């Protein structure tokens, strides 16, 4: 349809675009480019960046180990209450992360339902530790992985799995040798989304794991803290996160950004 867009739509559309892009542009314009090199090598920034990468990666691994089987159950096994389970899995998506953090504290905190047992039996405490950061990030990011993998599993032709069974493959072998390779692109996309979400996690992390440099202070937390003392540092940290986000978008463009 080659028709001129009416002004009443064009104007807000342009405004919307500017609204989305301008802040990012501002970040680039205000960046202390001259001192960027030295700032990037500052131990505080490197520490936060390294911690973020480590915890986001560990959280993604945790999500893969637990989330892929969960997605498989939702996609392949008929069980009563499956719809409710699927809805429950999606809750962290819409839950304010701070609330997630509070909930984690109540369950896994030192006096929490499971936390007290973990503490007394194994001497393990999660809150305000690096492991706690991983737990908080995984809690918030897992739905992204489960949604992506379940979608891929539903899209994959189940009859390949039946063919594998007639060739003597058990359900587990079929899963590892046929199902997983077939949905590998979906799992990869889900893992990347999951990792990106974990990397940017703020609310649940600061609530459940606190803000201790070197231990639980990830990039988003460092940005927030730096904002009050050193604006330029906050901008540099933000730039790094922006670069990572754009990088992820580029990786996933085939799957998510391609026009129909």
């Amino acid at each position, binding site marked *: 349809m080659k028709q001129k867009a009416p002004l009443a739509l064009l104007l807000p559309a342009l405004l919307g675009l500017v609204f989305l892009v301008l802040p990012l542009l501002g970040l680039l314009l205000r960046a202390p480019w001259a001192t960027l090199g030295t700032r990037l090598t500052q131990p505080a920034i490197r520490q936060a960046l390294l911690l973020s990468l480590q915890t986001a990666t560990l959280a993604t691994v945790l999500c893969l180990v637990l989330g892929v089987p969960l997605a498989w159950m939702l996609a392949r096994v008929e069980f009563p209450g499956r719809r409710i389970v699927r809805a429950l899995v999606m809750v962290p998506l819409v839950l304010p992360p701070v609330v997630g953090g509070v909930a984690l504290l109540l369950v896994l905190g030192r006096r929490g339902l499971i936390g007290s047992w973990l503490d007394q039996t194994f001497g393990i405490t999660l809150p305000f530790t690096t492991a706690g950061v991983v737990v908080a990030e995984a809690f918030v990011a897992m739905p992204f992985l489960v949604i992506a993998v379940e979608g891929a599993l539903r899209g994959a032709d189940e009859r390949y799995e039946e*063919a594998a*069974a*007639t060739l*003597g493959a058990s359900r587990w072998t079929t899963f590892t040798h046929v199902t997983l390779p077939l949905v590998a692109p979906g799992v990869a996309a889900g893992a990347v989304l999951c990792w990106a979400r974990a990397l940017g996690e703020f609310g649940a992390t600061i609530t459940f794991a606190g803000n201790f440099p070197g231990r639980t202070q990830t990039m988003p937390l460092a940005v927030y803290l730096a904002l009050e003392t050193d604006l330029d540092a906050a901008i540099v940290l933000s730039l790094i996160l922006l670069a990572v986000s754009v990088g992820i978008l580029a990786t996933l463009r085939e799957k998510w950004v391609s026009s129909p």
Partner: protein
Amino acid sequence: MLLDAHLIVERGAFRLDLPLSVARGEVVALLGPNGAGKTTAVRALAGLTPLTSGHIRLDGAVLDSASPEQRPIGVVFQDYLLFPHLSVVDNVAFGPRRRGLSRRAAQAAAMAWLHRVGLAELASKRPRELSGGQAQRVALARALVTDPALLLLDEPLSALDARTRIDTRASLLHHLRDHAGATLLVTHDPLDALVLADRFVIIEDGVVVQTGDAASITAHPRTDYIARLVGLNLYRGHASGHSVTLAAGFVLAIAEEQSGDVFVAFPPSAVALFPDQPQGTPRNTWPATIAGVHRHGDYLRIQLDGPIGAAADVTPAAAAQLHLEPGRPVWAAVKASETRAYPA
């Protein structure tokens, strides 16, 4: 019998009730229209759909509730279902690997089979790089490499174009002859069945309507579907001497004397069409209306409505002369000597 089964599967309103036995080295064709239960039968034998009741005994073992991976059964699926992420040789080696062979031994067995189906040089290709005929042969090799007691072929040629089909059918025949176990061929194509199978089991709506070899089925079809399958017009009626009264009250003259309930069959080529009622010779004649005209080999097949429905084959020249087009009234005629009547 190597396979002795009675498959009973109920799914909603549909019920499959199929007694089935196949001897060692025998190829049985399971024919039927769409929705007759052919695929359900294959799935039940392979263990992909549970039996409601009945039994499956194969090579002395009871498989009623065995899971698919425990059954010594090879399946060639309609669209082959070659694993897209594995090479051709790995696809064929998949079964041997799962049945306990080492990687090296499985690859060797797979290569041997790829040699047998003439595709050894494509071993490292991916399935998407294969033509339809090649994919079919790889699927066959994958199903046979484990030397299954029962081979199930679900419409093995239906995904192929006409030319490839002829070649692939010939090579399939060759491999089926070498297969020591039992083979069940599911198809809706009578030609595939005629070429490949020793015996026919024909099902409609989940039940067996006729069994036998090719000769007995083409000579004496017992349902409309089978009659169409073998290219005959078929009617059921009550015979008395040289005439048969059909359900609609229409009377057909037949050549040989019969009595009681009978089938009457005649080929579409025996039906002659005239613009006016023909006179003279002892014929069955009736007024009809043309319901449809389709190309059928060198002839046009004319579908006729009237007191009895029938198909007639005429040459394109005759069709042009008679202005045969849907809706046109004509007279149809069949000589009594061209009909065949047999007890129902």
